[in-house]
């Protein structure tokens, strides 16, 4: 056993210092697709733009007056970026206020001024609700039909690299002890009941985080499954297929008031 203790010292401290210090890996992360700033404007030839919608396998690209991307539908396949790098680009970084949204419509980029107002309202309501959660937060995870990869990324938060315990965040087995519900998966019929029961079993105040594009919109399966928002009220939305552990951590800190989200671009 003592050998293990020594082995534990072998690599020194491997834990990220984020959010206190920037993390190179988090900043180099390739997030959901966004429209390039200068070409989001309507093109002279409108018909050309309508064609862009067909690039996306999940219908995340919408062309009404201008080109918009619903990051809640983006599965990061990168087809639009390789077809039209002049119009679409990857968003950079797994953390920061843009990597998680406090309202569903805030995932549609570029946003509208009225969206920003709605997001501000949602954010204020969330902050008021979670004011009591500042010090120690307990999480409960429920898989509502994921592909299995989101569980790996949530599990990684417990590992030595992300180590959420240092931030006062813990996983709990019982929903009765949970403040935050992390939900993954496209929202299968079989999991609707158990998910709702878990949510109902949590004491107030409670926060729900939809982890991943599947949980937000159903992703590729959106013709039959539409995510988890119909089963439980979602407070924070984390796009990604799957989102990086940093993105999940970022959403957690936003949800519990440890990071303050600002308006999205």
């Amino acid at each position: 056993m003592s050998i293990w203790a020594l082995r534990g010292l072998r690599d020194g401290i491997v834990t990220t210092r984020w959010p206190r210090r920037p993390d190179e890996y988090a900043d180099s992360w390739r997030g959901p697709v966004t429209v390039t700033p200068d070409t989001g404007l309507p093109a002279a030839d409108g018909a050309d733009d309508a064609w862009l919608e067909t690039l996306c396998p999940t219908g995340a690209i919408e062309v009404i007056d201008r080109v918009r991307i619903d990051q809640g539908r983006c599965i990061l396949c990168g087809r639009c970026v390789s077809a039209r790098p002049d119009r679409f680009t990857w968003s950079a970084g797994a953390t920061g206020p843009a990597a998680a949204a406090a309202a569903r419509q805030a995932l549609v980029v570029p946003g509208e001024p009225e969206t920003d107002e709605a997001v501000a309202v949602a954010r204020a309501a969330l902050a008021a609700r979670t004011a009591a959660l500042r010090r120690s937060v307990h999480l409960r995870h429920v898989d509502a039909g994921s592909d299995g990869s989101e569980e790996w990324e949530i599990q990684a938060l417990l590992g030595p690299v992300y180590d959420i315990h240092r931030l006062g965040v813990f996983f709990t087995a019982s929903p009765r002890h949970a403040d935050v519900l992390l939900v993954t998966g496209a929202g299968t019929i079989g999991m609707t009941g158990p998910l709702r029961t878990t949510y109902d079993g949590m004491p107030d105040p409670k926060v729900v985080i939809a982890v991943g594009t599947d949980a937000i919109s159903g992703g590729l399966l959106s013709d039959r499954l539409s995510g988890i928002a119909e089963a439980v009220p979602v407070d924070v939305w984390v796009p990604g297929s799957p989102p990086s552990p940093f993105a999940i951590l970022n959403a957690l800190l936003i949800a519990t008031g440890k990071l303050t989200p600002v308006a999205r671009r």
Partner: protein
Amino acid sequence: MTLTGTEPTVEALRDALKSRVARGDRFAGLFAARRDGGITLSAHVTAKGEGSGGTRGGSPPGAETAGGWIDTLEARLPPGASCYPALTPVLGAAFWYERVIHDETGLIPEGHPRIAPLIAAGRPEDHAPRRHVAGYGLFTIPHGPVRSGVFESMEYLVETPGEAIPHLNMRIFYKHRAVAARFAGASVGDGVLLAERAEGIASVAHALAYCHAVEAIAGCAVAREAALIRVVHAELERIANHLDVALRLADAAGLAVATARFALHKERVMRVVSGLCGTRFGRGVVVPGGISAFPAQDPGQILAAITRLEKEVAADAELAMGTSSFLDRLRGTGPLTPARAREHGALGPIGKASGFADDARSARPYDAYPQHGLEPYREQTGGDAMTRLRVRFEEAARAFSLIRRALSDFPERGQLTPQAPCDPPDGRATGWAEAPQGEVLYDLTIKDGRIAHCQPRSASFHNLVLMHEVFAGDILTDFPFIEASFGLSVAGAAL
């Protein structure tokens, strides 16, 4: 697509399968699908050497010299049929497959020992807990679908007098996403995206199996350099999965440092993957005809990172396999006998740990595996959780060496072709790839440039049913070890 020389009836299919399996071929799947206005049963069975009835499934071009492939045998049900004679009584491995057929088509497999929903949500009364063993003081512990910790959703019904587990029942329908149905009508390119999300922790293997089927239909050959990158990604995925099993086992044993070490190695492997392709699960790499793009890094750079990781993983694996308090929990736990493994055709590390090794990478090699073949495995017959972990560590070590060989073989200069033109005509083929959990199969039919039908079969589905049988003599506290030692994904099992 019919049995040569025989009427394609279910009885003929059953007899053909029975004799093939008795001859040493492995049963690899059974599905029902509506084709041309009627219902067709398709069974998959491994084949080697000369053709033996049935239609030869598509084997990836370039791999045919190595001998093995997957046969598809078919039977057509009479129009309007509502039942057929079950195969399970003569072929136990078809047990779950026929329950899925019942769920998806409503057909009744007559003579099947337990026709109950498996992946269909059904009515609540269909799932009423049914006690399988009776006796004084026996009760059922329902565990799931929301479980303690970060797990995929499924429910275990553990029948127990307190310590022993005389019977276990599993319910996987909670996560059924109907992925197979989603394939129909999708474009060939979208099929890869779906395959990657069928079983997220084995994205590369699923994408490979799907693309092998497409490439077999199109008759296109993957360039050598692209095949090498495919091998690199497939093996990195294998290492990450095996490290995940090791960390779960160490966690169950309460070895905090070992858990942290394996978690650290797994994170580093996933960061190597994200450095290569931008995602931590190797998504978007494999496309029909090759790969989407070559890694931005220089092979030498990747090689250095891999070599460092290899040393660290090997050192910690060795220490874990020498920690008696850890091995005490694994030794003799969850035993699967070699006879059962052979009879069922247990896949991947579970089969290998019970003396039944049918690794697609050597038996039916694809991509760059024919040139970078695996050395034969030392036969292991322990069949317990410890042997399964030993097999996984060995597989991880081989994966590292395969990656090193593939990278050093990578052409330094010259014209590199990531993707060969791949435009499949109408046709049907079976593609396969060895996932960390075992062999993944894709039975794909393309019509008018789109997917007419696609049936994925994960190793998780094939192997999970074996968990019913491995609790002999084990008690409740062994449960997490047995579950972790199987290393399966519920998403892949329930699809």
